[in-house]
Structure formats: structure tokens, C-alpha cells
């Protein structure tokens, strides 16, 4: 049982506040992804959980035990470092077996476990090589294997696939997820790649400027972003936004059209819709097509509605020319609303 609880964790580096009051619970055996732009504090949070960085305030609990005063090796964790930290003076075998040797496991068990995880990561043929001679991607796999070999309760991974080529990354993504599910390990996985996050996570924590903006399942983060930041960070292309003005109780006016919306007394809201949740129709938002990009599976059209840029994804058979006027009807159950002042979602 290794549930992780992060309670009111804050971290500042001098005057710079890297993390503000983080609260997060990660269930036993859950695969949690920390997703966010560069510099938002993902590594810092991970390093606090690992014990490599001390939080300015707050507590970290693993498996019902407060561990933030323990040294890293006593926390039942293993970690994959963002810059690998694979020892260049040791062979791949000795790197993967490093933690096992520190635990003084018998030789044959070390060999057996190293060979097993090396197989999982497809680096059996590298075991005798010195890791100084490996490519970035190979080193990264050694780093993952070294962590897996420990069979830890919790595995912390800081962008473990960032240096693999696209094809290998896709392959490893699926495999790593399978390996971790099988090993019943609780995993925290840092990435800034949203495809990786969506495809691997049980839950995603979206981070922004030292805060966790939303922690929810991938589909929820995608469909029901809790804040405008999440809506514009996730999805490629991201959500479209248009200003909305009140038009009576629960009615909002968007670019000359009236939509059903939240029943609030706010002076204005933002109407939001995903590019794929629109279709050409008789009635709807009137847009002028600017750029037409046929992407094979579908057609991406960048248009303009009033002054705002607006993207739609249409069926690839649709014929659209730049300059053409489109009438687009949003799928009503997919429309979301945000408060422009707080940037939070309004139901």
C-alpha cells in the first residue's frame, strides 16, 4: 500500500516561489502524471517527494507514514532523473544493479533482476557496455531499468522518455505503462508532453506557475477543464474562446448568436469549444476561413470570428477555400464557460 499524500507543500528558492501550497493525493498503484510547461515546478515537486529537495513548508506522506524528514533511501522510492544520472564509470549492468548492490542482495538475485528489467527495457545487449558510451535514449532506458530493478513502492519519473525518437517513445509509452501496472507500483510521472500524459495517466495533475490547476482523469481534463489555462494547454489545437455577454437568465450572446449557458449575474463570460466539436450547419457562428490545412485524417481550418482566431477540425472531405464564409454550429453539450476574471470554469 503506497498512497502518496502531499499536504500544503510550498517551496521557495530565495525570493522565488517555485511551488505554492500544493495539495494532492495519489492512490495506491495509481499512475499520476504531472503535466505542465517548462519551469512550472514539476521537477521541484518530484524532488521534494524524493527527498532531494526540502519543502519550505508542508508534509509528504507515503503509505500512511509521514516521510518528509526521512532520507531518500528510506522512503521506499526509486527515481528516474531528468538528466538520467546514469553513472558513466559503471557498466550498464552495474548501473541497473546499483541499488540492489547497496541492499547487499546476493549476486544471483542481482543478476536475475537486472536481466529481467534489462529485457523489459530492451537493453539486454548493452549490459556489458559502459554507460558513458551510450546515446541519450539508451541512457534514459538504463535509468528507467535502474529504478524498476528496485521494485519500489513508488516510482518517480522525471521525463523518462523525452530523449527517445517519436516511434520508440510511442512503443515505450505503452510498455512502461504495462510494466508499471503489472508491478503494482504507485507512479508519478513528469512530462510536458500532453499526448504522453493523456495516453499513460490514470489521472493528470496540470501544473501552472507552481500550482496544481486541476487533477483529474485524462478525459475529464480534456472535456471539462477546470480553468482556462488547462483548456488552452491541453488539446492540439487548443480550445477556442469567444467573449459572451449576458442575454437574459441563463442566456448568453456570442458573436450575434444566443446560447444556453450558466445562470449567473456576471457581466461577461468566455464561451469555449474544442475545434472538433463544431460542424457546418444552417445556423451558427459565422466564421471566415483564413488558413486551410488538410492533415489527412481531417481538415484543420483556422478562421476568424469577429476579431478572434478560431480553429475547427472538419471532415477531410469538406471543401473549404481561404476567404470562404462558414457557418459553424457548436455541439451544445460540449460548450464550456469560463469566468474571464478568475479564469475558472463556470457551470
Amino acid at each position, binding site marked *: 500500500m503506497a498512497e502518496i499524500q502531499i499536504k500544503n507543500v510550498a517551496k521557495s528558492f530565495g525570493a522565488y516561489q517555485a511551488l505554492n501550497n500544493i495539495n494532492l493525493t495519489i492512490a495506491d498503484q495509481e499512475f499520476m502524471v504531472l503535466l505542465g510547461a517548462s519551469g512550472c515546478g514539476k521537477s521541484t515537486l518530484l524532488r521534494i517527494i524524493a527527498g*532531494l529537495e526540502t519543502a519550505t513548508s508542508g508534509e509528504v506522506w507515503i503509505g500512511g507514514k509521514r516521510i518528509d524528514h526521512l532520507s531518500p533511501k528510506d522512503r521506499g*522510492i526509486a*527515481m528516474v532523473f531528468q538528466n538520467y544520472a*546514469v553513472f558513466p564509470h559503471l*557498466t550498464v549492468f552495474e548501473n541497473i544493479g*546499483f541499488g540492489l548492490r*547497496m541492499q547487499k542482495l546476493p549476486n544471483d538475485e542481482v543478476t536475475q533482476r537486472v536481466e529481467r528489467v534489462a529485457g523489459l527495457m530492451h537493453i539486454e545487449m548493452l549490459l556489458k557496455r559502459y554507460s*558513458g558510451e551510450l546515446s541519450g535514449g539508451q541512457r534514459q532506458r538504463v535509468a528507467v531499468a535502474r529504478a524498476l530493478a528496485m521494485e519500489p513502492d513508488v516510482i518517480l519519473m522525471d521525463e523518462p522518455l523525452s530523449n527517445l525518437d517519436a516511434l520508440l517513445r510511442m512503443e515505450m509509452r505503452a510498455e512502461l505503462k504495462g510494466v508499471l501496472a503489472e508491478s503494482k507500483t504507485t507512479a508519478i510521472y513528469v512530462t510536458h508532453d500532453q499526448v504522453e500524459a493523456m495516453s499513460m495517466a490514470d489521472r493528470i495533475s496540470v501544473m501552472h506557475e507552481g500550482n496544481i490547476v486541476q487533477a483529474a482523469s485524462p478525459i475529464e481534463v480534456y472535456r471539462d477543464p477546470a480553468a482556462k489555462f488547462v483548456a488552452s494547454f491541453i488539446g492540439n489545437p487548443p480550445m477556442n474562446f469567444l467573449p459572451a455577454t449576458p442575454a437574459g437568465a441563463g442566456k448568453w450572446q456570442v458573436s450575434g448568436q444566443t446560447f444556453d449557458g450558466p445562470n449567473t449575474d456576471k457581466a461577461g463570460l468566455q464561451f469555449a469549444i474544442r475545434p472538433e466539436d463544431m460542424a457546418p450547419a444552417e445556423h451558427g457562428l459565422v466564421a471566415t476561413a483564413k488558413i486551410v490545412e488538410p492533415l489527412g485524417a481531417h481538415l484543420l481550418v483556422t478562421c476568424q470570428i469577429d476579431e478572434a482566431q478560431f480553429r475547427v477540425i472538419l471532415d477531410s472531405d469538406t471543401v473549404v477555400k481561404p476567404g470562404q464564409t462558414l457557418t459553424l454550429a457548436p455541439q451544445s453539450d460540449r460548450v464550456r464557460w469560463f469566468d474571464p476574471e478568475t479564469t475558472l470554469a463556470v457551470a
Partner: protein
Amino acid sequence: MLLNARILPYVLILPVTLFLCLFFIYPFVLVSQQAFGSSEGGWSLDNFREVVDYWKFPISLKNTLLLAAAVVPIQLALALLMATMVSKMEKGRDMVLYIWTIPLGISDLAAGIIWLAIFEQSGFLNSMLNGMGVIDKPVNFLTYQNPWIVFVAIALAEIWRATAIMLVILVAGIGLIPKEYYEAADVFGASKWKQFTRITFPMLRPSLQTALVLRVILAFEIFAVVAALGGTLFPVLMGETYAYQFDLLNSGAAAAMALIILAISIGFTLIILRILRVPKGASI
């Protein structure tokens, strides 16, 4: 242009190379000629036979090796300890380094004299022991009756004087080891001692090579400290070389001694390089 770029490095190192040839290779050739020359002209090993057969040779060889064997490991251990401590400091690190390296600025003869002032009959050690009532009259420690005290005094002076040169090299070397390796070691359960033996030490091998080679060569050339503290009580190879050249005016024998010291130094350098070699492929 291409040709220039290829030739330029050689042109740039030419002055240094010429300088070295002039002031190292040329004297070396002259010394070799003297060492291998004989009174009748032509080549011979007479000079070597003469110095090796002299009764003081085995003693001075033994003394030199013993001194190196006692001093260098202690210096290595001390320098490693001090370097790890300094590297862990965040504030005042430079200050401590400056203080620890002060003895480097003192010539070896001056260092010998400082330690003589401690050990001689009217020295600090005697006044201190006397003051504490341990002895009732000043003792002359540095006599032929106390060869071990002479030895310890020389070793202490050498350790005090020349540990810092290793320290400086090791501090630079430790500074080059990325701290991520220690973080990984922490996470994977390596104790501080294991971190030292499994990470710091192996990754420090290039610096250790430099520091040890330098120190060992200097240890075989020990002269002034011994002259100050031991005088003729404690013959060493370099002292004998000096005696051949300036007291006995036998420059052939002095040249032979110099070459023997050189050969020993080269031998130990090769051993050190071999022991601390980085395996092929293991980049550091």
C-alpha cells in the same frame, strides 16, 4: 586556410617545445653522457656500479622509499578528507582553502627550519614538555639514538608542507563531478561512505593520478627538509647526489644517482597510472 588551421596548433606549441628541448632534453643528454661515461672515455656502467656499491646507497634508498611510503598515503588520505570537507562547504570555502594552502608558499628548506625550531633541543616541543613537567631537562630528540624521532619529524614536516598540492588538485577534481550522481546514489541507498568509494573515488581517478604522480615524484626528490632536520643522520638519495656533486666533486656519480632517481620516479608513475587507469569505454 585549411592548411593554416592544420599547421597552426603546431606553430603555436613550437616555442614551448623548443624551450623544453633546450632546457630539458639537452641537459638530460649531457647528464646521461656523464653518467654512462668513464674515465677512459667510451660507454660504461662504472659510475652506476660505484654509487650502488657504496655502503650508504642501500640506506639512502631504503630511507627515501620508507619516507615516501609513510608520507604519501597519509597525505593522500588527508587531502581526500580535506577536499571532501571543503567541497561540502557552501560559505567560506575559499577562505579555508587559502589557509590550508599557506604551507605551499613556503620553500622546503624554510619548512624544514620551522620544524627544526619545534624539535631542536631549545625548541617549542622541549619547552612545552618541560612546562608540563613531562621532562625535567631539555632533550635532544634529533640524534642518532632516536632515528624514529628523526624519521617522524621529517615525515610530519613533509605532510605539513606538501599535502596542500594534492588538496588543490583533488578539490578541482571533486568540483567536476556532477551532483546528480550523488542524488541518484542517495535515492538508490548508498551511504556516504559508499558514495565515496563507488562514486567520488572512481570518478576522481584522473585527478588522483595527477596528484599522486606529482607527489610521489616530489617525495623521491626530498632533500631540503631532510637536510634541515636530519642532516647526515638520515641519508636520502637526493642528499647523496648532492654530496657526490658538491662534496666529492664526482659529477659522473652524481649524474648516475640522478638517473637512478629518475628511473624510480618513472617506474612509480607507470604503476600509479596503471592502478588508477580508467577502463576503456568508461568515460568520466
